[in-house]
């Protein structure tokens, strides 16, 4: 009996304990003050940043952040690296549950999505203060306004992701080609490169590689076109776009583009540069730092091209830093960002691999000027760059994120153009219909 009683007691106790533990775990998980905690729940201000450069970027960035010593009762800052993999989900779930950061970088159009949800603290006051301390005037021309919405500045510019032309100078010399400055000259360069078995329209649009659709949009903007009108509505089928895509299709059909490019990942594109199969092409500013092997030293930034309509232009993505309403102190968020912008120059001067700087003072440092390709991008390309919003407006806006920024219709459009089995009007009409379907 004793044994039975004991056994019975133990079993009940175990069951009761298990149930209690399960319930406690569930309650803890469901509690607003559960693990993780909100940014607003603690004293410190959470700064989330992305791996913008090489392996040395985030350690240095963390050092800058944790060295922040706020005045008075303002909160100090903690640092968290957020990986690019599934970053949309990471931010969305954190922001929705109020466990997100007080300040963060992220996707180029992320601030506009969160602003639409009422989660963003607009940066107007911060920018006003920066007008007094000189940071505002230090931004490259036109940059701050790309982040302006009807309700205020959704974020402040942080680094620039750009799409520019690149060429392999050794292959260009071998082909007897000069650096082109117009579309016609570019077509001739492609023809000369083809004679030595090299592609002149190097790019890719495979799994996870959105650069192809960026390049096509850049050509539209180059020709005075683009994807959105002044009402911020999709306008893919305008005449400038049709002319631009006709030109691209001509390059593709003449064999100046790698026939497999439609499915090239970034790694595949770099391997083609490395294999000296690409003599001229289009990519981001960091192409030579990619896996391009020995040709890195031969890669130079090309000149902006003038389209048949006499226009120049290109596409860039002003990556930015945003502030959230969920902060222990808005004043603290602004104070931290002021500190950060005054101390972030070393992210560029120490070659961490981050995109191009938003501040003229950084661009003028001796360390930055050592990279002539980056200097050329800022001097020749930056003044003509436009955002996804072109030609209608200068500032980015909410619908860009869910219509053109890495969306499936844009990838399909790029793959259909690079496949060469379509015509410009059909491809653009298909794109227009898809974009209209994604508008909110």
């Amino acid at each position: 009996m004793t044994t039975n009683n004991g056994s019975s007691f133990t079993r009940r106790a175990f069951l009761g304990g298990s149930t209690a533990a399960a319930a406690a775990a569930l309650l803890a998980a469901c509690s607003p003050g559960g693990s993780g905690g909100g940014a607003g729940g603690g004293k410190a201000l959470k700064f989330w940043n992305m791996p913008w450069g090489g392996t040395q970027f985030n350690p240095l960035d963390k050092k800058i952040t944790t060295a922040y010593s706020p005045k008075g009762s303002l909160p100090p800052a903690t640092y968290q690296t957020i990986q690019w993999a599934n970053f949309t989900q990471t931010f969305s779930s954190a922001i929705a549950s109020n466990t997100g950061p007080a300040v963060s970088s992220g996707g180029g159009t992320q601030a506009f999505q969160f602003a639409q949800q009422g989660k963003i603290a607009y940066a107007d006051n911060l920018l006003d203060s920066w007008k007094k301390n000189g940071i505002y005037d230090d931004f490259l021309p036109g940059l701050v306004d790309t982040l302006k919405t009807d309700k205020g500045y959704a974020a402040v510019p942080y680094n620039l992701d750009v799409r520019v032309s690149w060429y392999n100078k050794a292959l260009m010399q071998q082909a007897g080609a000069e650096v082109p400055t117009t579309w016609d000259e570019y077509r001739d360069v492609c023809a000369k490169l083809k004679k030595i078995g090299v592609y002149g329209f190097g790019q890719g649009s495979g799994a996870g590689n959105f650069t192809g659709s960026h390049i096509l949009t850049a050509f539209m903007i180059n020709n005075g076109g683009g994807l959105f009108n002044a009402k911020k509505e999709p306008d893919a089928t305008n005449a400038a776009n049709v002319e631009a895509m006709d030109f691209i299709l001509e390059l593709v059909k003449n064999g100046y583009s790698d026939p497999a490019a439609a499915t090239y990942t970034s790694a595949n594109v770099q391997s083609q540069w490395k294999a000296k199969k690409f003599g001229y092409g289009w990519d981001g500013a960091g192409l030579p730092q990619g896996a391009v092997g020995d040709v890195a030293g031969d890669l130079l930034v090309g000149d902006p091209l003038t389209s048949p309509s006499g226009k120049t232009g290109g596409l860039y993505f002003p990556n930015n830093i945003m502030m959230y309403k969920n902060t222990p102190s808005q004043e603290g968020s602004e104070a931290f960002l002021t500190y950060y912008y005054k101390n972030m120059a070393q992210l560029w001067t120490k070659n961490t691999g981050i995109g191009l700087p938003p501040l003229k003072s950084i661009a003028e440092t001796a360390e930055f000027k050592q990279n002539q390709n980056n200097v050329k991008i800022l001097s020749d390309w930056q003044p003509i760059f436009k955002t996804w919003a072109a030609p209608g407006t200068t500032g980015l806006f909410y619908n860009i994120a869910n219509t053109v920024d890495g969306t499936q219709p844009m990838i399909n459009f790029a793959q259909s153009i690079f496949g060469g089995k379509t015509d410009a009007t059909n491809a653009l009409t298909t794109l227009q219909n898809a974009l209209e379907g994604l508008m909110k």
Partner: protein
Amino acid sequence: MSTEAIAQSIDRARRGVGVGGSGRGPRRGRSPGGRSRIATLLLFAIPSLILLVLLNLYPVLYAGQQSLRNGDLLSAGDFVGVQNYLTVVGQPQFQRAAVFTVVFTVVAVFGSWAVGLALALLLRTRIPAGGFFKVLLLLPWVVPVVVSATSWNWLVATPQSPLPILAQALGFGNVLFLADPLLAQILVCVFKVWISFPFMMMMMASALAAVDVNVYEASKVDGASSWQTFRQITLPMISRSTFISWILMTIFSVNDFPTIFLLTGGGPVNATQTLVVLAYQTVFQNYQTGPGVAIAFLMTIVLVFISVLLYRQIRKVNIE
């Protein structure tokens, strides 16, 4: 061994009981002590069951209500009823993805089963370094799919990749394995068979191990050919494991996201897009939560339907 004895052996093998085993038939009644024991076991299971129900049921219910709204990743949106379901089903992109999902799944299930069974039969014979080959053959299943997909991309992606060079050397010209829609579809199916056959091989090997060798000896005495032995004895005796492996592989294939997403991203121009990839892209690239979750729910319904059909087949086999 008499025909009756063989029949009994087959029946016992189907129930997972060897010839020398002591398998008992199902119990017809339960004693009060038995009932008490079951009640005790149930009590032990209750905490886990509560957790399971909450952890699985809550997301399912939440997703269900998301599929009836026009929200996005941040906001719930307005209630739109079954509009999302009607919209996605009417979209040509969904229909194409559904068709390719069926093709992909059928090829994956039966392709990996055929290869797995063939290798399992082969490995039953005494071959030198058989253990080494068994381990080697498991590698496609063991290696993370990110690694194998990247390796396959390296094998086929550019004209300088090994397989296009081989194809050119064999006189097939410049073969674009990923850029040509049909070849890309074939490639992802072959890749899926390649990473899946070890699972089937293990399933079939364990099923074959349970088959009584006396049955084969008896059939040999009766003069059955190898093909007859395979058709009339091997296949029926491993049918239960076969159906189970088909169910599992159907679920694995329909829900297989990384294979397609890493190898082709669903391209070129959606040629290799399956429903699970379409659902992901709809939610996380186009920010259309409602339609994306609706696609996932439709997939689940179809999967449950297929699983029920195959389970019925298993029961039928047991009864026969």
